[in-house]
């Protein structure tokens, strides 16, 4: 007797976005500085989604691009800068001048937004943290509240759970069921995955289930909560994937210049997003030579032995 086949969740990015990201929904494309699914962000722009609530601790270039393209009505965040470079000008234009449309902001500190994901992930009613007291962030965001600690230590700040409609995460590898392994900065990916109603995972390498099972400590996200797996090599460019490619800092510096002008951004979107059918076409247009330069030298860890017990 054959066992029933396990779900094969492999999809193209076009299919995954079309199936799970609808107008008006909330989307968290996460990953701290690295592992940012630019492939997903560009596909959302290409499919012309509108009125999204975009959630990301550090909006980075990808949300600057998505906001310039008019996909979003609201941004939930904790630090909006071009990391290590400067400002995110498209977000500033939306906030300061409503170009291309107004953008509502909902703002936290890093630990506050991490805490919202953590409460969302465990379906807890709130997350307590030692922050915000003495800060104007309390007044700026009424969702951050102070409680009296029932155990008598005084006031404590709490944030409510956050449950995005869709989380989109990039990682090194997954199997076809969506069991996903990630190493490097773990950021908030585990928490946002468990918090979200749907999860799309994009990976550099699609691997056999046996590869996952050989190193179970490295499985950050179980296929149980994953809806779609996209095989998307270089899908995090110009951000990085630990051990696979470095951040393409030239792109971050170039964006700092060109994003100061909305017309230049529109032209860039035409050339690099609307004018290309998918992320594979984007990678081809950039050229292999560009990616070769971003490849780090190898620095493998010593193998670990889990032991065989039978």
């Amino acid at each position, binding site marked *: 007797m054959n066992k029933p086949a396990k779900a094969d969740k492999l999809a193209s990015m076009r299919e995954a976005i079309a199936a799970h990201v609808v107008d008006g929904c909330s989307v968290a494309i996460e990953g*701290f*500085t*690295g592992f940012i699914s630019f492939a997903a962000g560009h596909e959302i722009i290409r499919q012309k989604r509108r009125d999204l609530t975009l959630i990301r*601790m*550090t909006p980075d270039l990808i949300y600057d691009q998505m906001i310039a393209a008019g996909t979003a009505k609201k941004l939930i*965040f*904790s*630090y*909006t*800068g071009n*990391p*290590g*470079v400067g*400002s995110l000008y498209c*977000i*500033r234009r939306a*906030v*300061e001048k409503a170009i291309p449309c107004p953008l509502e902001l909902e*703002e*936290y*500190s*890093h*630990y*506050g937004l*991490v*805490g919202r*994901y*953590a409460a969302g992930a465990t379906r807890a009613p709130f997350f307590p*943290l*030692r*922050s*915000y*007291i*003495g*800060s*104007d*962030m309390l007044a*700026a965001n009424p969702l951050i509240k102070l409680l009296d600690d029932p155990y008598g*230590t*005084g*006031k404590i700040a709490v944030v409510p759970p956050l449950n995005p409609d869709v989380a989109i995460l990039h990682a090194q590898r997954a199997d076809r069921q969506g069991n996903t392994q990630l190493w*490097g*900065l*773990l*950021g*908030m990916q*585990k*928490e946002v995955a468990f918090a979200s109603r749907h999860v799309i995972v994009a990976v550099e390498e699609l691997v056999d289930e046996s590869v996952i099972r050989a190193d179970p400590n490295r499985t950050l996200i179980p296929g149980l909560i994953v809806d779609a797996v996209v095989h998307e090599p270089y899908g995090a460019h110009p951000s*990085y994937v*630990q051990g696979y490619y*470095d*951040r393409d*800092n030239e792109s971050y510096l170039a964006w700092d210049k060109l994003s100061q002008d909305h017309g230049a951004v529109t032209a860039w979107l035409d050339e690099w997003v609307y004018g290309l059918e998918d992320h594979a076409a984007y990678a081809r247009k950039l050229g292999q030579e560009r990616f070769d330069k971003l490849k*780090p030298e190898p*620095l493998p860890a010593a193998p670990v032995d889990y032991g065989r017990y039978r």
Partner: protein
Amino acid sequence: MSEAKYTDSEMMIAVAARMLKGARTVFVGVGLPNIACNLARFTVAPDLELIYESGVYGARPERLPLSIGDPTLVSGATSVVSMADLFGLYLQRGLVEIALLGGAQIDRYGNLNSTVIGPYAKPKTRLPGSGGACEIATNARRTFMIMRLKRRAFVDKLDFVTSPGHLTGGESRTRLGLPGGGPELVITDKAVLDFANGEREMQLTALYPGVTREHVQAEMGWPLRVAATVQETSAPTSEELRLIRDEVDPHAMYH
């Protein structure tokens, strides 16, 4: 002692590094603080463990990180953890001895603004926001600020309090129950200021070579308080300059 020429940034880096003498853990931001911490590892604090809010404990970067999320911080680190663990188990647990912070505006009690210039609802300039700064300022045992002395930055009243310092001065921070000790030093490009008085008000405590009190006052938006004794900070030594230029920031990205 060297008569070598040096830049304002090199002076700030050298002074900040000296202040980390003997420290065990430091919470690092990118840019000047990062160079200062790496310089301190070569000089006054060989056991210094660098902690980054991206989730890295004990970083040993082989190049100057481009951002606090640079992959060079991961390779060779003692431990890499989730941000929930970094903020919970390391910062809120009280394991961060010194944190280095900066901002667009600072007031006399060391409160910081990195959120907006102008009203929050209709900002003249939208700044990046807190990141981890609010909880770092709350929980770190000691906080050092690294900021260039500029009148538009050292203001009488902040447009927005992002990160709490000594709040309204005196015992106000302790009364609200903030666990960390709050601001201790402000390291600028002209002078060092501290808060070592009952009002916890920023006061001039050391001047760099060639800088006068008047120079400092000219860049501050309130009447400058001066400590009972004002030291003169020594210029960067030739060894400090060599380390900054050859080892820590060889591509001169920040100095």
